[in-house]
């Protein structure tokens, strides 16, 4: 007996719809086995992981805070990846966006009115876009590998931030500790429902961005251009599309969204610039983008799923006392099952049994049978 994967002539509609559920069931099963092996009650474990964080309103707020930057960045990355531009540097664009945006209240502390925040958001997006322009121009002009340049620029951005909050932007009242002064109240992204939790407008920006990019990709010529260039640059050129222009467009768009995510995180969730402003959102968003199958609306769902896996991980650590290593393994499994089950959309699994009575000479019959499938 052997198991064979063969490519479907067309994507399976059935498995497109079914695969997330299948993945989730496998995940629950594997999770239950892991919890049981650790001597914990699997029901408690799964409950803490998947349901506990959704049970209370404050926790839903936290879910939105965690998902917002992931979705914003991943939506931008989907355009990059769709056009075969491998922007790995969203973390850096996020950081520079935060720096650009926060520069306004830091340099003009007396400028306090309702225009501060919109200006900061625009500057944040601008900063991210400009920073993404570096690998974009290098690729468009010199054919540099954008994976390397964008990734390296992440470290540059983090060191710039580090230098700023230790040096020129350090809060004089912070006893020589590295952090910028707290942002004044006009410079803070408002909370959506301050009565019940901390969630701010970031999640609204994220969903709006997802809808806008979805519309652009699905319904406009620009979206068509992005997809054609991504699949076949040569065909795109025959169609009159410019590869260089698409590179620049994709990078600027994803840089702007990452930069916006950066300033929203600093201004909304953290409240000041400090050496660490992101637990790796720019990298996690790459996973979110693929988990959402590069579809902006799918990315919204994927962003919430990944955010839930962080929150659930904490709940599991607190409620049933597993270590964060278990939680990470769990997260890894979730992603693995989702991506593995997606294989079923493009491939089918067939179990081929040797015919019991027939000698090896019967192979042609098996071949013929395969042909009929």
């Amino acid at each position, binding site marked *: 007996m052997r198991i064979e994967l063969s490519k479907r002539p067309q994507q399976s509609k059935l498995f497109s719809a079914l695969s997330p559920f299948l993945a989730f069931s496998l995940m629950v099963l594997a999770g239950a086995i892991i919890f049981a092996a650790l001597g914990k009650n699997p*029901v408690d474990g799964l*409950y803490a992981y998947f*349901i506990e964080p959704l049970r209370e309103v*404050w926790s839903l707020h936290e879910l939105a805070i965690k998902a917002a930057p992931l979705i914003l960045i991943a939506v931008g990355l989907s355009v990059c990846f769709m056009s075969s531009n491998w922007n790995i540097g969203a973390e850096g664009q996020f950081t520079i966006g935060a720096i650009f945006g926060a520069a306004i209240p830091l340099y003009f502390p007396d400028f306090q009115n309702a225009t501060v925040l919109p200006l900061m958001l625009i500057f944040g997006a601008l900063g991210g876009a400009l920073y993404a322009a570096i690998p974009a121009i290098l690729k468009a002009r010199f054919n540099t590998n954008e994976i390397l340049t964008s990734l390296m620029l992440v470290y540059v951005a983090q060191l710039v931030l580090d230098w700023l909050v*230790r040096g020129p932007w350090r809060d004089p009242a912070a006893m*020589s500790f590295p952090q910028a002064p707290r942002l004044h109240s006009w410079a803070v992204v408002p909370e959506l429902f301050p009565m019940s939790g901390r969630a701010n407008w970031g999640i609204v920006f994220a969903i709006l961005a997802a809808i806008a990019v979805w519309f652009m990709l699905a319904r406009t010529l620009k979206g068509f251009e992005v997809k054609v260039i991504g699949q076949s640059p040569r065909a795109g050129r025959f169609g009159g599309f410019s590869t260089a222009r698409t590179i620049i467009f994709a990078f600027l768009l994803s840089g702007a969204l990452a930069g916006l995510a950066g300033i929203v995180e600093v201004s909304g*969730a953290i409240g000041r610039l*400090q050496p660490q402003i992101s*637990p790796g959102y720019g990298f996690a968003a790459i996973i979110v983008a693929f988990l959402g199958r590069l579809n902006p609306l799918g990315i919204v769902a994927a962003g919430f799923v990944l955010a839930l896996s962080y929150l659930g991980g*904490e709940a599991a650590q607190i409620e049933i006392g597993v270590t964060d290593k278990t939680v990470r393994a769990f997260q890894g499994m979730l992603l693995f099952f989702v991506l593995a089950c997606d294989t079923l959309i493009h491939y089918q699994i067939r179990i081929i049994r040797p015919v019991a009575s027939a000698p090896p000479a019967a192979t042609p019959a098996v071949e013929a049978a395969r042909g009929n499938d």
Partner: protein
Amino acid sequence: MKRTLLALAASAAVLITAGAASAQEKTKACFIYVGPIGDFGWSYQHHQGALEMQEALGGEEKVELAYLESVPEGADAERALERFARSGCDIIFTTSFGYMDATNSVAGRFPDVKFEHATGFKREHPNVSTYNSKFHEGRYVQGVIAGHMSEAGVAGYIASFPIPEVVMGINAFVLGAQSVNPDFAVKVVWANTWFDPGKEADAAKVLIDQGVDIITQHTDSTAPMQVAAERGIKAFGQASDMIKFGPETQLTSIIDDWGHYYTERVKAVMDGTWEQVDVWEGMAEEHVVMAPYTNMPDDVKAQAEAIEAKIKSGEFDPFTGPINKQDGTQWLADGEVAEEGELLGLNFYVEGVDDTLPQ
């Protein structure tokens, strides 16, 4: 499916009632760590303190322990703290500087929960205390040992972040070494991390290649100790006793002993006597303990013990003048002792540090 839902509902009910019951009898102490509890450095030592506290106060019957590892110092910290506060913690220890804003902001929303923030200075609400230890006292003793043991007269220092506590440690180490060898110098590498074994190992290799023959670290992994062991030089451990990672390498280690502070504070919560404090204790109170002096001649060991005893008894303070700043100008006059307030915001080197302080 129906059965699963029922099971879930049942377990939810169990959890809720269990939570309510335990809230009356047990005290719940919660800890949030910046690294993994297996770092064998900072977070490990806090966790050991937590376990010691639980043991001392009557074990699991009396104290329920919960902790979160590797919590990033950004927006995540506030969520983690809020979850703790809502899950019935009576007292929450936040064990890294970067949790300062989150600690104060959550403390404002949960006035009945006690918060204890390590290494910070902000106490915006009456239910927030801060605590820290005078690690630099141990660094001075290490400096004295290095002054005796180093043939090159140069030690390598793997530093984490240029914050006062770390700068204080570098200065104390240099002063200790110079009390033995006035020409002693220290080379510093800033790793810009608290825990990154790869980076820390690289820093150790670079320093050894530059000719230092003793390594000391203010980062939390055992990697520098292991590199020093491979290269056959001596090293000091950090935060916990790292002798297992360099049986022939470790001279001593500064052990952060948080156990009695945690016991004292959780007990205060149990007794209803908890009050806001700002604690900065050192060797005298045994918050800073030296690991056994190993891999050194007996006379060096005697010197180390002598200076340790002097610091412990309060007879000697590592920051006693005359001390010059790195640029040669005077910091402390002869016999003058640095004020605590100045030390807590320290942002300059003393003479003998071969490095420019990142500003």
